Every structure is written in C-alpha cells, then in structure tokens.
C-alpha cells in the first residue's frame, strides 16, 4: 500500500467529513433540540408521529410516491418495450424526446403544464371555445395533477431501467419459454418481466423517492401537505418560530431516513437477485422484433402521445417567454422580447451566478471525483468501500436535507455560509455521486494492464495517470463533466436555503418571480433560457459521446 494512496484517501475523507458527515450530524442533533429549552430529547419525533397533521403529510407523501410509481410504471412498460424491442424508424429521435424530462428541471414542467392545463389555460380555453365544456375543467390543481406531472418527470427513470433490463436479458431465456409452449403475454409476465426486476428496481426506487425530495412541485400546485413541502415552509418561513423550525427539521430527517432506507433496501435486493453472469457465451444484443402493422401503428401513436406531452414543456415555455399579457387566450397574441430584456437588464447576475457557481462546483467535482474513482477502482486502501458507500448514499439524500443541514452547520461553528463559496460547495456536495459514478464506470472499462505496462516501462504512478489513464478516460470524464454541470445548473432545493441577496441563481430567480407576483412571463422566460442552455450542453455531450442518448444516459436504452 503506497503512502501516496493513503494520503489521497485521507484528503478525500477530510472533504467528506467536512461537507457531508459534519453538516448531516448537525442536522440530526438539531432535530433533537427542544424548543424553548437548552436540552434535547426525542420530544420532536414523538410529537411528529402523534400529530395528526404531520402523520397526514407523511401518509400523503407515501400515497403520492406509490401513485407516481404506479402511473409511471404502467406508462413506462409499453414504452420501454417499444424502445428496446421493436425495429422502427425514428426510434432514436423518439427516445431522445421521451427521455428529455430527465434533464429538464421539474419546475420547468410545472410551469408549462400550468400554462397549458391550468384553469384558464390553453386546453380549457380551446375546449370552451369549441363549446365542448361550459366551465373550465381542473386538469392539474390537486393530487391528480401532482401525480401526472411527477410521473411524467420520472418516466425516463422507469423507461431507462426497464429498457436496460429488456436489452440485457439473454434472448434464449425467452426463446426457451417459447419452445416450452408459452406464447406472447404469458411469456412476458412469467419470464421477461421477472428477469427485468433488478434493473427496474434500481430505477423504481429513484421514482418512489422523488416525492420525498420534491417540495417545489406541490407548492406551485397549491398542495402543501407533503413532507418536503411542509419542511420547506416550516424552515424557510418560520425561522423565528423555533418549534416549527425543529418540526421542519424532523420532517427533513424523516424524509431522509425513508429515502436512505428504501435506497439501501433496493440495492440489497438487486445485489441478491443479480441474474447477469449466469449464462455465458452469448453474442446476442438482445431480441429485436419486427412488429406487425397494427402493433406498429399503435406503438407509433403511443410514442407520439408521450413525446407530445414532453414537447409541451419547451413549446409552452417558449410561447410564454416571447410574449406578454397571455391571459384568457388559448395562444399568445402579443409577441415581445420584453421578458428577456427584463432578465438581462434587471438581473443579469442570475445568469452569471449560475454559471459561476456551477462552474466552481464542477471544478470541485472533478478534483474530488477523479481521485475518488481512482481510489475506489484501482487501490485497496482501507475504508475505500466505506468511501464509495457514503458517496453513493448521496444519490438518495433529498436536496432539502443538504440545504437545511448546510444552513444549520455553516452559520455557527464553521461560518462558511457568510461567503458565496457556500453555494458551489453545496451544489458540489449535492451532486457528488453523479460525476463519480461516470468516472467510476469509465475507470472500470479501462484495462488495468494498460496502466501496468506504463509502470513497468519505468513511469511513476502519477505520470502514468497523466499520460495513460487520463487521456483514455477523457471521453467519459467529459460526459460526466457536462452532466454534472447540467445538474448543478438546475439545482434549486439546496440553493434555496443558502442564497443571500446577490447570490441568486437562475432557478432561484424562476422561483422568486413566480412566488412574488406570479410573474409567469419572466419565470417562463428564465425556464426557457434554462432549457436552451441545457439543450446546448446536451448537444456538446452528443458531440463528445457520439449519439445524444448514449452520451446523456451512459448507454442503456439507446435506440438503434
């Protein structure tokens, strides 16, 4: 064991301790503080689980999670099947469109759907003008709207994980069932789906956890009785009411515990049931089917339907961004660049802040992620598995937990929060696993003998890394870099707790404009700007990684 590796590992542990372990322990300590006293105890938790209101929000969140998972799975199964199995033209384009929500911020979708499906939104006005309905229908305000919007947002996770399963199943498993006399649907139910469960579960757990994380969507739709939303309101609006603050913190901790537990459970289950590697010696790339004319048309219609819903987001936001006074009309009539003028003249800082903070977070990400991937994949430093574990856990942590814990931890104690550096630090901590996972995956693909050959030739470890590993990892690293940047650029749930005047980012600007005076035009213009920037970044990834999907999702589910 080289001393260098140990030193590197301790540096990484120091970062983890400072940016993850310390703030999260402060969060937990705070949740035990009793309002009005100096003491601490489990009173807050007892109250939380005895108070009918908090119990109701807890229950609501679980119901919402279940519904979102159910709906996205029901819609996702046929979609994944079409994308993974059917030989069809335009599959790549459809896949790209359908998976778009994964890179669009959730709040962008919410705004678009409010404009389109709202009380006097385009849909209702069109229906009323056509004389089909007399009073506007309530499409989205309420539980059903939440389920709809969050399901659409999480649909890509389900589709990607199912498609990954469908393409990686050894075709002979299904052929054997066919020969044994099982046809069509029965074969799908008894063989295909069960074999997909491990990959499905990996995606499903992320979907299930989303309602425990997303406080903003319910808030915008006027639904607050969900754990993260309640936590946000309690902490952000009632900071002086220490009792409500502590209850909010308890809600955050409870959400986090739910997330972590489910995440770990899913991981354990998936590990237990890994079916890959059981069969050997296949060359197949998965089954591809030529669908009959009826199936072909139905599948096209279905893909069109989902793609249209997804496309509504950028289109509606675009319409709204380039217009003003779009009220009580199905489509805007007054076109202007005013919204953008306002953004650029009155708050240019939003955009520059966003780029600055995400950029710095990205540098932290690379400086931390590459060595971490190296330590985890290539060395046997003690504790490297624990390092991997903690970083991976961050995937499951709600953003709100990190925001709140930073707020608590870095005001007193280590006063980092008084400086704007806290913003990129928080973004970095929140998206810690993303870059690492991609670097990790690229590292695994890099044959160790290439590095060993360099070392045998007399080149030291560090120069080997610079000369051999880094150039070979570059592609994966660049893709990881851009994905990280996109994620950081859109981050709101962490940043919302930490920003001070002058530190606002674009997502915060979107939120504030909506919140203050329902300045939908400006919010929409900002969200549209966000989508454009994201799209440009995605194009960059596509150029690097070849194939937009392969680039963005790292392989599975890509069309042919």
């Amino acid at each position: 064991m080289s001393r260098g590796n140990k030193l590197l590992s301790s540096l990484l542990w120091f970062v983890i301790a400072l940016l993850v372990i310390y703030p999260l322990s402060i969060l937990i300590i705070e949740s035990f503080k009793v309002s009005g006293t100096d003491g601490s105890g489990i009173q807050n938790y007892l109250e939380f689980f005895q108070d009918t209101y908090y119990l109701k929000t807890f229950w609501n969140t679980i119901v919402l999670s279940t519904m979102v998972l159910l709906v996205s799975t029901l819609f996702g199964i046929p979609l994944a099947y079409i994308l993974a199995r059917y030989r069809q033209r335009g599959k790549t384009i459809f896949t790209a469109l359908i998976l778009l929500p994964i890179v669009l911020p959730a709040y962008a979708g919410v705004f678009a759907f409010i404009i389109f499906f709202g009380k006097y939104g385009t849909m209702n006005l069109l229906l009323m003008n056509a004389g089909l309905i007399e009073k506007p229908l309530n499409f989205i305000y309420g539980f059903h709207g939440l389920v709809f919007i969050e399901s659409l947002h999480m649909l890509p996770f389900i589709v990607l994980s199912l498609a990954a399963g469908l393409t990686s199943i050894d075709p002979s498993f299904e052929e054997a069932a066919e020969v044994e006399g099982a046809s069509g649907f029965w074969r799908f139910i008894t063989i295909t789906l069960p074999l997909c469960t491990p990959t499905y579960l990996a995606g499903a757990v992320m979907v299930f956890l989303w309602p425990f994380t997303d406080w903003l969507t319910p808030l915008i739709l006027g639904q607050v009785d969900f754990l993260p939303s309640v936590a946000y309101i309690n902490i952000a609006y009632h900071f002086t009411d220490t009792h409500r603050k502590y209850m909010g913190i308890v809600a955050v901790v409870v959400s986090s515990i739910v997330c972590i537990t489910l995440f770990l459970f899913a991981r354990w289950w998936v590990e237990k049931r890994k079916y890959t590697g059981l069969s050997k010696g296949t060359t197949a790339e998965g089954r591809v089917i030529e669908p009959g004319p009826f199936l072909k048309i139905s599948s096209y219609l279905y893909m069109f339907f989902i793609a249209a819903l997804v496309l509504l987001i950028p289109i509606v936001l675009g319409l709204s961004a380039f217009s003003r006074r779009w009220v009580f009309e199905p489509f805007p009539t007054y076109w202007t660049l005013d919204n953008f003028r306002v953004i650029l003249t009155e708050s240019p800082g939003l955009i520059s802040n966003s780029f600055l903070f995400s950029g710095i977070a990205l540098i932290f990400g690379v400086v931390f992620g590459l060595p971490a991937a190296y330590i985890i994949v290539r060395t046997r430093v003690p504790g490297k598995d624990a390092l991997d574990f903690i970083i991976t856990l961050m995937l499951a942590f709600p953003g709100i937990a990190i925001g709140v814990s930073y707020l608590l931890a870095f005001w007193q104690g280590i006063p980092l929060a008084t400086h704007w550096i806290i913003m990129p630090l928080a973004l970095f901590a929140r998206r810690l696993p993303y870059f690492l996972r991609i670097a990790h995956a690229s590292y695994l693909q890099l044959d160790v003998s290439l590095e060993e050959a360099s070392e045998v030739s007399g080149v030291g470890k560090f120069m080997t890394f610079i000369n051999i590993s880094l150039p070979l990892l570059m592609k994966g690293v660049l893709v990881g870099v851009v994905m990280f940047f996109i994620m950081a650029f859109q981050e709101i749930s962490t940043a919302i707790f930490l920003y001070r005047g002058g530190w606002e980012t674009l997502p915060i600007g979107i939120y504030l404009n909506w919140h203050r005076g329902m300045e939908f035009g400006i919010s929409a213009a900002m969200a549209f700007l966000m989508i454009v920037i994201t799209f440009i970044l995605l194009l960059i990834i596509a150029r690097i990684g070849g194939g937009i999907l392969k680039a963005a999702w790292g392989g599975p589910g890509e069309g042919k």
Partner: protein
Amino acid sequence: MAFIEIRNLVKRYNKVTAVNRIQLDVEKGELLTLLGPSGCGKTTTLRCIAGLEKPEEGDVIIDGKPMISEGFVPPSKRGIGMMFQNYAVWPHMKVYSNIVYGLKLQKISRQSIKEKAKDVVELVGLQGLEERYPGQLSGGQQQRVALARALIRNPKVLLLDEPLSNLDAKLREKMRFEIKSLVKRMGITSVYVTHDQAEAMVISDRIVVMEKGNIVQIGSPHEIYDKPASRFVADFIGAMNFIPGEVVGVNSGTNEVYVRTEFSEKLLCRSIGSDVTTPGQKVYASIRPEDVEVFAEPPQAGDNLFKGVIANKAYLGNFLFLFVNINDTLIRVQAPHQLPQEEGQELYLSLNPEKCIVLPE
C-alpha cells in the same frame, strides 16, 4: 417419408445468406448432427426447425405437417423440446418450476405433473435439487435441468444447440454418452448442432457437414471420416495431409489413380468419388497422419515408399507427432512412441495406397 423434412430452406440476414437452399431429411428416431465451423448456418437451420427464425423461402415439415407453407406455426405450437447453448435455465425460478414450466401450460392435473417431474428428475439425475435456484447449481447440473425441461413433455423432436460447449472437457465427454443413450432409449428424433467433430463422431447416427450455408456432405461418422467429399470436410474432421498433384493415370476397374507430386512421379491413390477420373486434373493426394507407416530401416519394397528427414517432432504421450520432410514436402505423421526418433534423422514412410485418397482441388 422422413419425420422431419427440410425443403429448399433459405434464411438471409440483411444481405448475408445464412442458409442457402438446404434439403434434408431426418428419419424417425434418428440422432442427426449438424456439424460445421461457426457461421456455417448450422444453428440457423436448427432455429428454423424450432420456429425461432422465419426462413425467407422453403418449408420445414415435421411429422407430415408443414410448419411454414400453410401458415407459420410458432415454436410454442410445434411440440418440440430444445436445449440451448447457454442452458437458458431461468434464474428466477427454482429447478422444479423450470422443469414443469411447459407442462403447467397444458391441461394436466397437478398429480400427473408431479409424477412426470419425478420421473424426469430421476432420468437426468437431479434428485434432491428440485428446490434449488439455478444460481446454486454447477454448470453440469444446470445443463441437466435444461435437459429435463426439454424432455418432460415427451417432445416429438428434440433440438440441441451446442448443449455441451460450456462444460469443461471431462464433463463434456461424459455428457455426450449420457445424452446419446437417453435420447436413443426414448427414441426421440433429435437434431444436434455442434462445431466439435469429436462430439459429432461420438453422438451421431448421421452427420451433416455444413459450410457457408450449404450442406457439403451427409453420412454416417464412418463415411464422413473415411470418404470425405471434399478437402473442407477432410480438413474439418480429423487431420489430413493434402499433397498437391496432378492425375497422370487412372485404372477405372480398381479405383486406382496415379498422381504426380513434388516428390513422386507416380503416387498410387484411390478415388472415392467418380469425379476424379481424368488425367491432367489437379487434385490433392490425401492421407491421414495415422495412415502413414514409419520405418527406421528400409522395409521390403512396396508401393508409395519414400525416404524423408524428421523436421519436427512432438511427444504426445500415447504417440509421436512428426513432420517429415520428403523433398521439401512436409508430411504429418502419427507414429508409435516407441520409435526413438530425433530431429534431422532419416526414416522411411509408406503412404498406404488403400488409405491414400484423391480429393478435387
């Protein structure tokens, strides 16, 4: 009428023709092997019989019923059993559920399913493993599960797609005999695909040798080995010396052919087909290494006797493997290991005229 008739079968992948107008009959109760290198179309042919591939042209007739020309019959309706190269034992089901999967789809009482399962489990020797998951079994055991699953419904036809290729050498040899005796005992018409010529020799009633989508020879293991139809077949099955030459004389009464080679004006060979009869034709005088006799001292005069020098030798335990140079032509020889031969040493070779055959170039 044959039990399985393959008529004019054509299967293309994009522009590559994998199977090119194949005609083949499999008799009832026969164990027929499709043998050839990878990419020769053997697996594609098998998959067409199973119904896992739809051929572009032609028909497969099983027990008198056309599978394609009168509407495509899907695999699930063909009444076949199949073993896959990678076993395809479903990892999420226990051994028992794997075996009875197809049986459960038929309208059979639970009791009789249990009885049949018990019989087949005993038949393949999986007693006591019924409640295990495939992940807890060895490769050989998984293979038996696949066999049991293929046999439990008493299929009219058993298809085996390189079922032993993932097993280690020792187990593979053992399983060859087991599968053969089992299939023969049950009298199931079977088509076996392999690229392993030794396996094909051991297991088959008849062997079909395929090359580039075509059948190049059909025959019993004996016929294929002793009378290969072409250089390709001779080369693929066993080892063979190919000595290029030209026909200089033919004795049509006795099948005797004289060939001029680099080292001999008149090498005495036999023709096994009717196509090598004209003087001047370019041919290969072909002899298997084990049919070349080796003498340290010049023996009594005889046909096809030559002096050569040992160029290379390898000791393989039960015999010696020599490369002998006769006037710059290298001949592979399999010699008894008692012969104490050194490289560079001279010796005498007899190319047994009975075993030396001419093959068209």
